[in-house]
């Protein structure tokens, strides 16, 4: 494509020095709409600082006092030293009257409305304006011919791709390390960056091919320099030839980077497909095959392989995934999601999520589909943390949970999610310490909704201690429910039970005085004081600690100043549906005087044997060897016997095989 030639009336000013000791000033200017004062003001705003490397170019803009759409000017200034053979201006002297080199500026501005429709670039403007020799006296605006360069497929400069979104943050960008480049090269870079933004941004763009680093207060948005300027508000500093060091910005500017990557990179990649190809009958097929390889064009993908081959995000194995050919669109979208998460391409990810949300709202996701989605999500490792996604990380997780796991999230589903994030349960022993779910996932779970007490305790415990405390203070929770839940056992991981137990102990400690201790005792008695349940979730030390805390809650010191009485000891160790554990005995021994220890020993022995699953004959033989238990001096009336709770099928009923005897022999 050939470039188009346009003619513009450029207003101009020549800035520099004459031999009058007045220093820098506007020597001459056009007598158009803009006055000498306008030019003086504009030039003073965009000063490069004293440079010994000229020429340089700066671009800026001018707005009339009463701004109107399209009423502004694009400005380009050429900064130069007067030297033999220069043709930027007539009658200028190389040195001022003190013998110092004078830097002149040829300043041009042309109406934006004349330039924008032709997509005139900065190099186009520079070519046109640099051919003008300005007079040393005021004169008419200059008619300048600008040849707009032929449109090309954007030459993708990786640094420009990253700098363009940085400009959208509003923070100036300083390019370092470009000392060896030419002014023209740097101007092209500035133009390439602007070519990656809507043209309209040029109406307010300011840039310079070089600035003095100690000239800190300049207003260029994009500039080259030899060192970062120590301004109050730091610039984005990027390095020439080191685009990989430039982190994409966050927020919408980051999304713009994602959009750019998606739109521009594939086209630029065409130049890499340089193997010789002929224009034969299969040229179309061959072209599609090649672009398909670099994802320029997306074919329908074959059904994904069996979900039992786990893949993780970013692992080479997961690159070869493929979406189902026969098309559950959700599965297709999940594949797309994975691709756009991996890139990351946030603008496309946003579209994917929007489509998935539509699918969710339309309903009709049955269990079998959910299982398939779950399998894909697991394979792609989509539930793992990924800070690069910014605000879309939460949206992605919300969508995936609702889609593949359903809502609200029960304890069982929570365990599935945990397995999903960690790999299969086999990868992490059931007894392994709980590293906790990633925070973004926990937050997503909370947003999605938690169905039961177990899932709430686990998620809130991991998320925030204060959140857990608030929840424990709510009406949703009471001690009996927590104790009952602990007694129910069946933890997917030991750590879950431990978390739940900690939460229960915290509740009992924090809410002391707000629950009926008699009820607590009954609930604990009914569940064997949780001794057997605790064996599943904690080691000996933890069990003793937890049981001691439970005993403190059940027998508060203010009501039992002399400690736990003999009758209660007997009840705890020998009168519950479950056999006592050594930890329970240890906890009891910690809470009673030494003189009462024999009673505890007797009760423990009695309870241990009485709760064994022995037949009647064996029991009968043992009966006479068992200690006789006494219900001694209780200051409080004995509690009514606990209602029998659920028991193991072969557990022996107290008093059926072995008889519980009181001190009076009844």
């Amino acid at each position, binding site marked *: 494509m050939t470039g188009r030639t346009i003619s513009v009336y450029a207003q101009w000013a020549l800035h520099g020095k004459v031999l009058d000791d007045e220093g820098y000033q506007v020597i001459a200017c056009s007598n158009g709409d803009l006055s000498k004062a306008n030019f003086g*003001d504009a030039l003073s705003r965009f000063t490069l600082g*004293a440079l010994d490397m000229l020429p340089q170019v700066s671009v800026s803009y001018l707005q009339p006092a009463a701004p109107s759409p399209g009423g502004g000017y694009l400005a380009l200034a050429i900064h130069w030293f007067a030297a033999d053979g220069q043709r930027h201006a007539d009658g200028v002297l190389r*040195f001022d009257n003190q013998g110092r080199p004078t830097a002149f500026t040829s300043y041009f501005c042309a109406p934006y409305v004349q330039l924008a429709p032709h997509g005139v670039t900065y190099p186009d403007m520079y070519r046109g304006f640099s051919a003008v020799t300005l007079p040393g006296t005021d004169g008419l605006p200059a008619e300048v011919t600008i040849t707009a360069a032929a449109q090309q497929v954007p030459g993708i400069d990786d640094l420009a791709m990253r700098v363009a979104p940085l400009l959208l943050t509003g923070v100036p960008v300083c390019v370092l390390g470009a000392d060896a480049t030419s002014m023209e090269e740097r101007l092209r870079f500035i133009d390439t960056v602007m070519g990656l933004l809507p043209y309209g941004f040029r109406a307010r763009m300011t840039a310079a091919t070089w600035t003095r680093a100690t000239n800190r207060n300049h207003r260029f948005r994009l500039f080259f320099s030899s060192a970062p300027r120590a301004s109050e508000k730091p610039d984005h500093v990027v390095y020439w030839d080191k685009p990989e060091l430039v982190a994409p910005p966050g927020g919408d500017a980051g999304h713009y980077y994602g959009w750019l990557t998606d739109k521009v990179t594939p086209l630029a990649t065409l130049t890499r497909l340089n193997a010789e190809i002929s224009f034969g009958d299969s040229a179309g097929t061959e072209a599609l095959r090649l672009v398909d390889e670099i994802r320029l064009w997306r074919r329908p993908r074959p059904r994904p392989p069996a979900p039992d081959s786990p893949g993780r995000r970013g692992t080479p194995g997961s690159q070869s995934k493929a979406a189902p050919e026969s098309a559950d669109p959700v599965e297709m979208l999940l594949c797309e999601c994975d691709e756009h998460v991996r890139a990351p391409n946030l603008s496309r990810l946003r579209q994917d999520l929007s489509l998935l949300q539509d699918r969710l709202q339309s309903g009709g996701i049955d269990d079998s589909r959910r299982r398939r989605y779950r399998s894909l999500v697991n394979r792609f490792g989509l539930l793992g943390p990924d800070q690069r996604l910014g605000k879309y990380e939460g949206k992605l997780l919300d969508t995936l949970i609702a889609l593949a796991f359903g809502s609200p999230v029960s304890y069982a589903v929570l365990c599935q999610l945990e397995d999903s994030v960690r790999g299969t349960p086999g990868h992490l022993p059931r007894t392994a310490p709980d590293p906790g779910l990633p925070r973004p996932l926990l937050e997503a779970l909370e947003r999605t909704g938690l169905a039961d007490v177990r899932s709430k305790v686990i998620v809130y415990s991991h998320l925030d201690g204060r959140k857990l405390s608030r929840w424990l203070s709510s009406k949703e929770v009471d001690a009996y429910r927590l104790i009952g839940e602990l007694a129910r056992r069946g933890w997917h991981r030991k750590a879950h039970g431990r978390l739940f137990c900690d939460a229960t102990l915290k509740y009992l400690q924090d809410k002391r005085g707000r629950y009926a201790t008699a009820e607590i005792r009954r609930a604990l008695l009914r569940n064997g004081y949780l001794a057997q349940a605790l064996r599943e979730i904690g080691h000996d030390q933890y069990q003793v600690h937890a049981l001691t805390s439970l005993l403190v809650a059940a027998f508060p010191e203010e009501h039992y100043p002399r400690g736990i009485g003999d009758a209660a000891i007997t009840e705890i160790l020998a009168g519950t549906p479950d056999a006592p554990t050594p930890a329970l005995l240890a906890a009891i021994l910690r809470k009673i005087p030494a003189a009462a220890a024999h009673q505890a020993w007797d009760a423990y022995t009695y309870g241990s044997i009485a709760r064994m699953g022995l037949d009647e004959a064996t029991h009968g033989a043992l009966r006479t060897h068992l200690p006789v238990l006494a219900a001694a001096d209780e200051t409080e009336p004995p509690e009514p016997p606990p209602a029998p709770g659920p028991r193991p099928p072969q557990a022996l009923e107290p008093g059926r095989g072995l008889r519980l005897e009181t001190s009076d022999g009844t």
Partner: protein
Amino acid sequence: MASLGKNSSTGSGKRTYRGEPGIAMLGATGSGKSTFLGALQIALLKQENEWRIWCREPASRKALVEMNTALTSEGRFPLPTTGIDTFDWILGGRRARTERKGRFGSRSFEESIELTLKLTDPTGELARPDQIGLQSREELVDHVAKSRGILYMFDPIREFNRGDAYEKTYSLLMDLVAAVADDPGFDGRLPHHVAVCVTKFDEPRVFKTAESLRMLVWDEHDPLGFPRVHSSDARDLMHSLSKVSRNGTGEVVPQLLEQYFHPDRISYYVTSAVGFMVSKRTRMFDIQDTENVYRIESGESLVRGPVNPINVVEPILWLVEQMALAG
């Protein structure tokens, strides 16, 4: 330029002064502001004291090296400033200090000090009255208003040729007063310490004036035999030089400064950033050939001989000392 704000001391007697504000340079175009800064490093070296200058900030460091190298090695003057250059230079050295010990005793010791000098070097054009209201002029006023010290460069040759020192100084002072008038503690005068530097001492017309007024003093220990004008005579020399101002207003510049600044916060120096020419034959000062600047055929000015700055360190150290005393 020099900033003396908060200070901290360590047990080792090292004391560090940092922070804003700094010292601003004022003077007309070509009065020698940038050259003065470029000569500071070599001036410190030639004084053979322990003061040294260095930078942490990369841009200022680069500028320091470039300015120093250009002047001393290449004999080239710095390019005229455009815009406002700001340098964060650090002045480090030792000074004697006396501290009370007990009820009646005292002890003297040397302490290391490190001063962060924030130097503002604006283009001279910003002092022109026609710049009032422009953004860069307002930035200059803001810089100076925030500074605690001012290096005021008075160029007697320019005053002779153009005679605009009064006009520019007055308009700038008006802007400054307006900028600080609402500050707490403003008593009608600007709070800055001002070191007035009468520049270009090596220029024959300036030198001859000082000589004719019998203001030259010689230090017998000066290896080059350079004469100087004592600080106590500097104001009178400035006054005399201003009498030949082109429009006759220059002679009231000292009064103008003393009207808007506290007179006891103004000190005068007669300076030359490049110093006198040293005779190539005798390696000594030659009273018949003082100027150390020459012009080559193209019109460019260069330094003739070695750079031996006169009164470049002194005004800065005076400002530093004053600001330190003022806390």
